[in-house]
């Protein structure tokens, strides 16, 4: 029995080294990273990556013709068809719920943590179908695949901020590529999105690390989000990376004193068997630098102060657990206030009336050197900026040179969103505050969402530090809610009838006055006395 997994591994390694099939070879790697955070929570990042060796994005100039047959072993067919149909070179979709707390949780392993749905794709130009047409089709196809309202990411929300969303893989050089980006902060992620997500995995949720993806526990987490990333690496092939991130709180219950956690307590599941087709299947646990703790079972190896478990080799069922001898010190955790990231973000919208508001963005630089960041707002047209009121202040004093390189594409009512992009330089250890007046739109009757009184979620602003030369992470501000003037939807017919009555009353009076014939009536003066 013990020999069997080894044999498996040997077979798979053999299969990987000798390409015995005529088609493209495919590799599946799964990884789970668990990090105990200093506030007692546990960050978990699942990453399932399938590489289609030698695959390449479809040339957009061939989109009108019949495609070659698609034969996949590990690569998800449902997603592969969509990528081929719309000639997508790179695709990133994230569906998240909750606010990512950068100060306490640090940078996430997967940077796309904006609340709600975010989709961005690089599409090659040229060929019979235009980029916008394919972008529309792609949205609808993904909406169908993931059972979410992605088709609402329409042209009212589509922008093209290519500086912020640079391709993470390579793009084919044969054609010019364009970016399309849209976000829908009001979209919620739930179990109906996870079910199709699991079906894209070679081992579904039935073996390997994906067993732990238990919707009952995942959607109960303080923060959770799933991501789909499709990249093309020039020398390797097309990679699909499916990710799930969650922030779990072992200390949620008031009776729990220790920050101990295990697979059983976090996911209510154990890993019963390894995924038979995974090339590598690793669980990484970040080990705390200080304090006493114990971890069981014994890790396969230790790498960069991380415990590594190979699910193929470890004893199954695997119920990884970490425990601490002492109670969790809430006081100490809250007293260490120093944020984990070098930037802290805040964004608010003050609304004094139904027509106007006041947008404030605060960026705090915790470093000892000044830092430049790229600030991006992709605002739907319902909130429009008065750019001349833009004021940057540092610690209460107006600083004119803090904002530079502004690029601004104003909104067009009922169609295009605003794209506002600027480079902000924040002095060391200080807070830069940007304020701007905004006007709120008056919507047409049919443009209101079904729950109009709730207000509109505005997409997060995106901050990208410019000094980190290598792959600087994008930071997302929390999204904000704007309250627009909403009509009374309860009695439209009463309103119509009432308005019609008033109009016809006024019309009748004026018409009567115009066509009335005045005559002289003789009155006997004696009679009137």
């Amino acid at each position: 029995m013990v020999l069997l997994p080894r044999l498996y591994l040997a077979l798979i390694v053999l299969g990987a080294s000798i390409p015995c099939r005529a088609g493209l070879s495919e590799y599946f790697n799964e990884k789970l990273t668990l990090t105990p955070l200093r506030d007692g929570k546990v960050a978990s990042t699942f990453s399932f990556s399938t590489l289609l060796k030698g695959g390449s994005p479809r040339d957009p100039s061939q989109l009108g013709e019949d495609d070659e047959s698609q034969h996949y072993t590990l690569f998800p067919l449902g997603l592969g068809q969509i990528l081929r149909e719309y000639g997508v070179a790179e695709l990133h979709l994230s569906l998240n719920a909750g606010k990512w707390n950068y100060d306490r949780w640090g940078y996430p392993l997967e940077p796309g943590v904006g609340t709600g749905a975010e989709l961005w794709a690089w599409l090659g130009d040229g060929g019979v179908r235009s980029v916008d047409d394919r972008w529309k089709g792609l949205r609808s196809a993904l909406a169908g695949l993931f059972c979410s309202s992605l088709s609402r990411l329409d042209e009212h929300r589509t922008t093209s901020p290519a500086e912020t969303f640079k391709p993470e893989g390579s793009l084919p050089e044969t054609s010019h590529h364009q970016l399309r980006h849209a976000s829908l902060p009001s979209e919620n992620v739930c179990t109906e999105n996870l079910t199709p997500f699991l079906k894209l995995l070679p081992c579904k949720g039935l073996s390997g690390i994906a067993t732990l993806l238990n919707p009952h526990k995942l959607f109960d987490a303080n923060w959770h989000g799933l991501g789909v990333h499709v990249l093309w690496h020039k020398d390797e092939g097309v990679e699909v990376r499916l990710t799930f991130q969650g922030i779990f709180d072992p200390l949620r219950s008031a009776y729990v004193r220790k920050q101990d956690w295990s697979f059983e307590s976090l996911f209510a599941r154990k890993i019963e068997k390894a995924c038979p087709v995974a090339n590598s299947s690793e669980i990484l646990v970040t080990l705390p630098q200080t304090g006493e703790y114990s971890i069981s079972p014994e890790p396969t190896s230790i790498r960069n102060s991380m415990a590594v478990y190979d699910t193929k080799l470890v004893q199954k069922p695997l119920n990884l657990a970490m425990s601490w001898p002492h109670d969790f010190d809430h006081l100490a955790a809250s007293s260490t206030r120093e944020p984990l990231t070098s930037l802290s973000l805040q964004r608010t919208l003050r609304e004094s009336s139904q027509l106007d508001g006041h947008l404030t963005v605060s960026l705090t630089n915790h470093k000892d050197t000044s830092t430049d960041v790229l600030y991006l707002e992709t605002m739907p047209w319902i909130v429009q900026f008065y750019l001349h009121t833009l004021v940057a202040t540092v610690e209460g004093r107006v600083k004119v040179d803090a904002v530079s390189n502004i690029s601004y594409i104003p909104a067009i009512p009922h169609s295009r969103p605003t794209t506002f992009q600027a480079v902000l330089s924040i002095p060391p250890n200080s807070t830069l505050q940007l304020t701007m007046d905004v006007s709120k739109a008056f919507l047409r009757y049919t443009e209101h969402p079904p729950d109009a009184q709730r207000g509109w979620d505005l997409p997060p602003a995106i901050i990208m530090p410019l000094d980190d030369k290598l792959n600087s992470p994008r930071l997302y501000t929390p999204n904000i809610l704007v309250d627009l003037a909403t009509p009374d939807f309860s009695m439209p017919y009463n309103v119509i009838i009432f308005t019609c009555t008033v109009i016809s009353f006024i019309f009748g009076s004026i018409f009567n006055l115009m066509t009335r014939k005045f005559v002289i009536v003789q009155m006997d003066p004696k009679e009137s006395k």
Partner: protein
Amino acid sequence: MNPPAVPETGNLPASLRDPSTLFFQYDSVRRSIIAAYWVAILLATPLWWYTTSIERLPLPISQASQEISRPLQLPVNVCLQESKPIFAPLLQVSLDRFTSSRILEGVQIHITGSAKCETTSSGNSYIVKPGQTKLISGRALEFPMRDARSVEDLTSTLVNLIVPHLAHNDKSNRAVQFASRYRLAFSLLNEDASSGSGVMGWNVEHALTRYITPILDRVSHLHNFTIESQVQFHAPLAFDVQRLGNGEHSLSYEDLTVFVNSAEWTLSSSFSNEPVIHLVAFVPSSDHSPLRILEADGTISNSNAFILPQWGGIVLYNPSEGETSKQLSSRGFQDVFGSFANQLLSLLGVPNLPAEIQRDPRDRNTISDWQLDALLRRRTLEAVAGTKETLGSFIKLVDQIDNMPIGPSVRDDVQVALSSLNKVYDLASTSLFQTFTSSASAFDSSSRAFFNPGMLALLYFPAEHKYAVYTPLFATSMIPLAIAALREFKIWKQQRKQTNNG
């Protein structure tokens, strides 16, 4: 305080003026105000009518009903090669019996006897030659003609070859609905690959070239195909498998109907509207292996494959004990793709040859010319029947629902369908293939017209709805207008009478 000066009759004090002398109290001004309103209303009415009415273009209804009631006869000429015309008249009589019993509805077989039949390449003409065995090669049939009794035999053989679906009265509807493009989805499903008995991969491209491509090439005139394949490593069944005494496991007939677990298996994505033919190889988990199919009487069936009509085919593949390779073995390819090929043929509606007929060994095609012609004939008849039915329902529907808009695209589709249908009748006697193409285009156009989303546009906003909203405005405004006009008309009539009298 002086008492106010009392004006005498007809005289006003200097401070007041006679209202009839004011310009806006002139009869003509008042009348032109009323007239202006009415002119505005009368001019606006056509505009209102135009902007609120539904576009209903006239349809060629009489032409349609004429085409629908027209019967289609596909003529088939069979040349019987004999030195003296002995059997030909007998054969014709025997075939006419079939025609009169309506078995051969839509097809008319003409027999000619000749000493030297010309070989043809048209799908309408066949040759029957005397021979030792029943053998087909190309569009010729060798048949051992001995006496009058063999005429009966030849009749049924010909009917079976020319219109097998009518002859067998095939009601099972196994074949998928006609479409010009199908998506062929090949899936290798492992019930549970982690249990140790999985097939981790297959060299599907090689197998497709060997088993499937010859079929697709042969029917390429009828359909285009998009091919895709996938492997799944966890495909659980939605029901429990029965365990037999000898350690084998079985599926009953009831299990087969619920075999496809569409909740768990993602067999094909739904991003395109092309109909999908699924061909599934199912590898049971080691707990359920080997898996067999039970006959209705409880015995184990020889076959391990079954067809779900109009959906696709499923092959159960039990890896043998000795198989160590994680790839599909060559025996597996033969089992699985051999069955796939047969399933694909019957799903596409390709008829089987009658058992007693042999094929010319020189003919290397997977589908003989006779079968292909029979398939074309069947699809043509189905498409024409479908077109007639769709057009009939369409016209009935349009007739019944007055609020249904008919745009130019719908009208054009109907016209194309009718002209294609007309072409089918014209071409029926010349070329079978062209007849088929026209019938397919007629069917396509008629379905497109029937399912045009534009026809639903105003269905949910009926005129009553609009009137209910606007009546409070228009009715109340019209009353003063109408009364003023009526009053003015009366005054004008009175004045005329007075002037006439005076």
